[in-house]
């Protein structure tokens, strides 16, 4: 009987079984940001401990940083305090920090892959639930809390419960106007927001195999929205081609050796799975959420099902039997660790080029990293967005969560390329989020309401 990638990587990184029945798992890469790390560094300081593997620990700032007016000190004193704390912690403990102004700064889940730090076969931990993003490379990557950040800093290890593996095979061709974001939203709708609890999701099938790394990252990113702490794709030539030449990827002969090792980690053809699910790509349409969790969604042409969660509908001001299509929006947000990479911005720019944002809509594009930003600017994407009436910002988490100046106000409705439509998520306790692909957000920004992007790109 063969093994899955999860089991191969898990076994390689197991230090020992713990008396608690958990595994002591070595963490190959630890990514740190300003929000979930200060108390962990304080715990080390209090006990007189060092960071065990500082050269496997990398920090950046993304959650609280403003996406404009970034001169120091920040106008926001709490944000300034947090960034200053991270600077001091990284200095005191010998951890590399990619700070505001550095061309390597960005959302932690965008820069890890971009710099070639994220590689197949690693265990990756970060104090952020969207760490599952890195699984797109065939890494086992998961979000952790601050006490676990402390554990990884001090020991480079975690005590982990074993995971079951559900294979989700996506087969067939996606229609024009249907994107990776729609695939993962459709998966979460079908399996539910808690269907993945206790599982790692292995995304497989020819649709996934044809996807770029950016698309695979979008899919793995939202695994946690389906309850799965880990999501991954087996590494292949697309993965290797992406990594070649990246600053932290192996070079020269080491790259050839690495490729052979990486390829050997893919799940064996006779591996057994705890569950198997099949998704037909042809059946998928653009998806938009109507509720207050990412599983509460419909195809853009569908009506909201009868007997839907009344509390969610009331919060959103929507009704069962109605369509989300035609819903007027106030804000359009293209960004977040789900959809802020160069290919996302290109796709949105194709729709926006030569058009104008509806007069009542505030629209912003927030590149996922300084590198995405400069690459987009070299292609002139910033000019396309600006000419259409979008704001073009600096890299950060921005309006995905209410932790920096980019927030909804009152009951505003936001067409958002982010990952969570929870109550209050985008910074206003009564703000409303409609999750969709970046192309759908771009189309909604122009129309001033939710439309079917297939009518634009078809």
């Amino acid at each position, binding site marked *: 009987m063969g093994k899955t990638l999860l089991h191969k990587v898990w076994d*390689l990184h197991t230090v020992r079984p713990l008396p608690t029945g958990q595994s002591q798992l070595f963490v190959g890469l630890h990514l740190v940001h300003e*929000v979930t790390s200060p108390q962990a560094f304080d715990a080390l300081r209090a006990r007189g401990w060092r960071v065990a593997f500082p050269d496997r620990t990398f920090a950046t700032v993304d959650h609280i940083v403003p996406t404009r007016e970034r001169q120091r000190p920040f106008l926001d004193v709490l944000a300034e305090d947090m960034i200053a704390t991270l600077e001091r912690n990284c200095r005191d403990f010998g951890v590399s920090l990619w700070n505001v102004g550095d061309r390597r700064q960005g959302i932690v889940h965008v820069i890890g892959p971009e710099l070639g730090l994220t590689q197949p076969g690693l265990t990756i931990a970060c104090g*952020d639930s969207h760490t599952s993003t890195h699984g797109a490379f065939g890494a086992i990557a998961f979000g952790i*809390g601050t006490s676990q950040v402390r554990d990884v800093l001090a020991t480079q290890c975690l005590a982990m419960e074993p995971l079951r593996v559900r294979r989700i095979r996506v087969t067939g061709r996606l229609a024009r106007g249907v994107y990776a974001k729609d695939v993962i939203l459709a998966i979460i709708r079908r399996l539910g927001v808690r269907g993945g609890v206790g599982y790692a999701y292995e995304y497989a099938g020819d649709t996934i195999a044809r996807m770029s790394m950016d698309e695979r990252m979008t899919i793995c990113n939202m695994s946690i929205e389906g309850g799965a*702490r880990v999501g991954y794709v087996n590494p292949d030539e697309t993965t290797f081609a992406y990594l070649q030449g990246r600053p932290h990827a192996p070079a020269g002969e080491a790259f050839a050796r690495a490729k052979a090792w990486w390829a050997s980690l893919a799940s064996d053809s006779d591996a057994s799975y705890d569950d198997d699910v099949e998704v037909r790509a042809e059946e998928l349409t653009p998806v938009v959420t109507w509720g207050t969790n990412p599983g509460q969604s419909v195809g853009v042409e569908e009506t909201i099902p009868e007997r839907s969660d009344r509390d969610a509908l009331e919060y959103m001001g929507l009704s069962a039997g109605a369509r989300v299509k035609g819903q007027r929006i106030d804000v359009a947000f293209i960004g977040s660790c789900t959809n802020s990479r160069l290919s996302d911005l290109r796709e949105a720019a194709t729709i926006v080029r030569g058009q104008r944002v509806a007069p009542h809509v505030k629209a912003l594009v927030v590149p996922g990293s300084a590198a995405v930003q400069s690459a987009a600017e070299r292609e002139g994407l910033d000019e396309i967005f600006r000419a259409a009436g979008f704001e073009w910002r600096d890299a950060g988490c921005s309006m995905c969560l*209410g932790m920096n100046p980019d927030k909804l106000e009152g009951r505003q409705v936001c067409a958002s390329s982010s990952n969570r439509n929870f109550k209050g*998520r985008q910074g206003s306790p009564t703000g409303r989020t409609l999750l969709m692909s970046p192309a759908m957000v771009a189309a909604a920004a122009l129309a001033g309401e939710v439309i079917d992007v297939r009518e634009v790109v078809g």
Partner: protein
Amino acid sequence: MSGSLRITAIEGPALPLRGDDIDTDRIIPARYLRTVSFDGLERHVFEDDRKAAPHPFDDVRFAGARVLLVHGNFGCGSSREHAPQALYRWGIRAILGESFSDIFFGNAALIGLPCLTAARADIDALMSFVEQHPRSAVRVDLAELTCESDAFVCRIEMPSAQRDAFTSGTWDTTGLLLERFDEVRDVATRLPYLTGFGAAPRA
């Protein structure tokens, strides 16, 4: 390990919080994560929900609760440990629910806040009982895996490894992970990506 860290039973007033898929953004809104410590988080637990409608955390009948009763997939979403920290600092010492998100469950365990599960019907029955008898103490027993109150008893569950960690006082894992650091180094030396991929490929 230290006997003082042993958690075998939690007893006290309970607080029923109905609803599935309560995410950590609701437990503690993101604006309160703009801090370098966990101090004072209890003041903002469920703040937006509490402003929007009457809420069990403001119900005087449940003041001083130690056991929180919840439904399914409690603590989903963001990995913020601030969520269990806020609940713990508010006074909650055990959570009994239909199910929990993996990350929340682990975060809670590491601060000594056990999350236990029970059948939906039992949770519903206990919630109703507590709403009618808010002053009755509820006892969550990790050793016996039972939950009891006056005229109410049900089976509860927790993965055995986790339960052992609480009952033996080993839930604070850092010490355990540090115990044999030489073995950690051994693993590091056999990982190809830490050794320049110099060794023969292996899986």
